[in-house]
């Protein structure tokens, strides 16, 4: 009777066949999962736009309770950072805490979108390993996100939605890996960054493609002519990249470089003509980024893309000092940033409306963390949970989602100085958008492995 290690030829061939068959079967199962995701996708096109507010936005002043009781609690905790009640921009949204709310006075464009039901706020979202209460936080009886209050770590954890693991991939990258099967013969990656490499779009198979606000990032010193030195050099480089390479590494390098060069030429071609919309964007960094995204959305059919994920980013939110102008708290550095966001988001929404894609595009904000509710004098420090903006033609607007914190310093939601314990996890916030993007409930854990720990895999803010 042959043993497992019987070296007979018949046995050897049989084992090889089994191994090959198993490999093929497992590969087929993986493909079936992806195809299942693709099959569940409906509609022709959807885009997800992550706007990262780097440094930690003080959303305590983005949306403010405007009724007497709520405002008094807010003002008592905020101290020198409190906005005047009279300047708040009222919005027609309901909240489950019975309070009425107003936006920062620098955001009239977003006020209009709120009142049209096209923008709203997800209250008190943050990185969590498990649902956490103040008692559990104080006792450290549940795992807490790694390096709370640390910029880089929290940026990465927001973008990976895996705060209890070393970084490997971002949730946007995992989402792209899953739904990329829906893009047939796409000419460029479905993951495009307008602000360099980021953690959010790091995936297993879909690579992020970086462009800048004026177009694709191209190699310098290249030319198409054949008589100039640059032209000859470009041709030589192209020939070298096309040549057969001796090893896997060289082959991969040549393939990726050649692909990047051809993608660059393709994207530059699409972005070089007139924009297919008349909306004028602010000429700020964010305005330029969102304008380019709108143009890439318009080019999606020609690029063979039915799903796109974009990443935009603006910095400057880490306002430990000079956050507001003393005596005129509706102005200052924070107001300037919020004004830019308001103007740019409104322009982006209008542009996608012109393109007939507003209902197919969802834009959301993310940030390192919220900020302390009380002030350090003329600024705020690193916090935890924060409120975030969602804007989409598919939004179920007219209400604030999630639960606002109790604004009492050292109250039930506070870990000290108004660092709110999140009442909604990044996982739940992200899963809602992943579901809208077409991911089935079965496949949600592929994108958000920790989602099973939380109560609401779909918060219902997108229709």
């Amino acid at each position, binding site marked *: 009777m042959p043993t497992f290690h019987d070296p007979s030829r018949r046995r050897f061939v049989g084992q090889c066949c089994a191994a090959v068959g198993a490999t093929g079967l497992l590969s087929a199962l993986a493909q079936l999962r992806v195809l299942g995701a693709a099959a569940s996708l409906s509609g022709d096109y959807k885009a997800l736009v992550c706007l990262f507010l780097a440094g930690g936005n003080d959303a305590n002043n983005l949306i403010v309770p405007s009724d007497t009781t709520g405002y008094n609690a807010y003002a008592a905790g905020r101290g020198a950072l409190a906005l005047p009640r009279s300047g708040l921009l009222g919005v027609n949204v309901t909240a489950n805490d019975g309070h009425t709310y107003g936006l920062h006075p620098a955001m009239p464009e977003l006020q209009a979108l709120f009142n049209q039901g096209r923008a709203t706020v997800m209250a008190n979202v943050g990185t969590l390993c498990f649902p956490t209460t103040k008692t559990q936080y104080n006792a450290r009886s549940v795992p*807490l996100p790694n390096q709370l209050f640390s910029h880089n770590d929290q940026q990465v954890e927001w973008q990976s939605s895996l705060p209890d693991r070393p970084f490997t991939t971002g949730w946007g990258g995992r989402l792209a890996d899953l739904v990329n099967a829906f893009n047939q013969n796409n000419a460029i990656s479905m993951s495009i960054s307008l602000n360099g490499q980021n953690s959010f779009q790091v995936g297993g198979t879909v690579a992020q493609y970086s462009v800048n606000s004026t177009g694709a990032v191209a190699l310098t010193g290249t030319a198409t002519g054949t008589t100039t030195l640059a032209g000859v050099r470009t041709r030589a480089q192209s020939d070298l990249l096309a040549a057969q390479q001796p090893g896997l590494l060289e082959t991969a390098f040549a393939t990726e470089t050649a692909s990047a060069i051809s993608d660059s030429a393709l994207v530059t071609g699409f972005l070089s003509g007139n924009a297919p919309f008349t909306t004028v964007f602010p000429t700020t960094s964010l305005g330029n980024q969102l304008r380019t995204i709108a143009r890439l959305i318009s080019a999606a059919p020609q690029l063979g893309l039915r799903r796109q994920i974009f990443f935009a980013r603006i910095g400057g939110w880490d306002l430990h000092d000079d956050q507001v102008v003393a005596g005129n708290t509706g102005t200052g550095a924070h107001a300037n940033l919020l004004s830019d966001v308001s103007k740019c988001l409104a322009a982006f929404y209008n542009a996608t409306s012109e393109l007939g894609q507003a209902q197919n595009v969802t834009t959301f904000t993310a940030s390192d963390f919220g900020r302390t509710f009380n002030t350090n*004098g003329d600024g705020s420090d*690193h916090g935890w949970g924060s409120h975030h903006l969602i804007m989409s033609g598919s939004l179920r607007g007219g209400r604030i989602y999630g639960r606002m914190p109790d604004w009492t310093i050292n109250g039930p939601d506070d870990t*000290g100085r108004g660092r709110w314990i999140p009442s909604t996890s990044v996982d739940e916030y992200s899963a809602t958008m992943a579901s809208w993007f077409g991911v089935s409930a079965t496949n949600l854990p592929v994108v958000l492995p920790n989602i099973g720990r939380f109560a609401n895999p779909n918060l219902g803010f997108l229709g």
Partner: protein
Amino acid sequence: MIAVAAVAIWWIMRVPPPQPQPRAVPAVPGPTASGLLPLVGPASAASMAAVPKADDPGRSVLLDDLNRSGGTIQDDLRLLSEVFAAWRTNFPRDGNPVGENAEIVRTLTGANALNLALVPRDHPAINAAGELTDRWGTPFRLHQLSGTRMEIRSAGPDRRFGTADDALLTP
């Protein structure tokens, strides 16, 4: 059958997963992965018993020269930075301690898994609120850039942050 065979082969041939290493001295509730320590009181009887006296050879001398007369604020910032480097050497998996100044001081003064006091609890630069202060009496701003990079800022002689006389160390 093929799939079952493949799984069986994989199970037999797989490399055992690495086992988590035990902490060096799990004498007290350890820090979570966050680097935050359980909120033990700074003056509990048990913990106070471990506080080294001024003449104790086990007393940390890392910050003995902090705010020393004749020294400079840049000297002070370097000393503090060295304390965080020492912390990371002792807690390489945890990263820098995080939180407000007082929370970080509580960790550095012994509220950690090793009961390691890199800063003596009775250090004269620690104010009544438990914060490490600069040579002008203002608490340092300990700005957590990442698990391994702690930016340290002093408000300077005018005792106001964000002015020209601030002193800053960015690692």
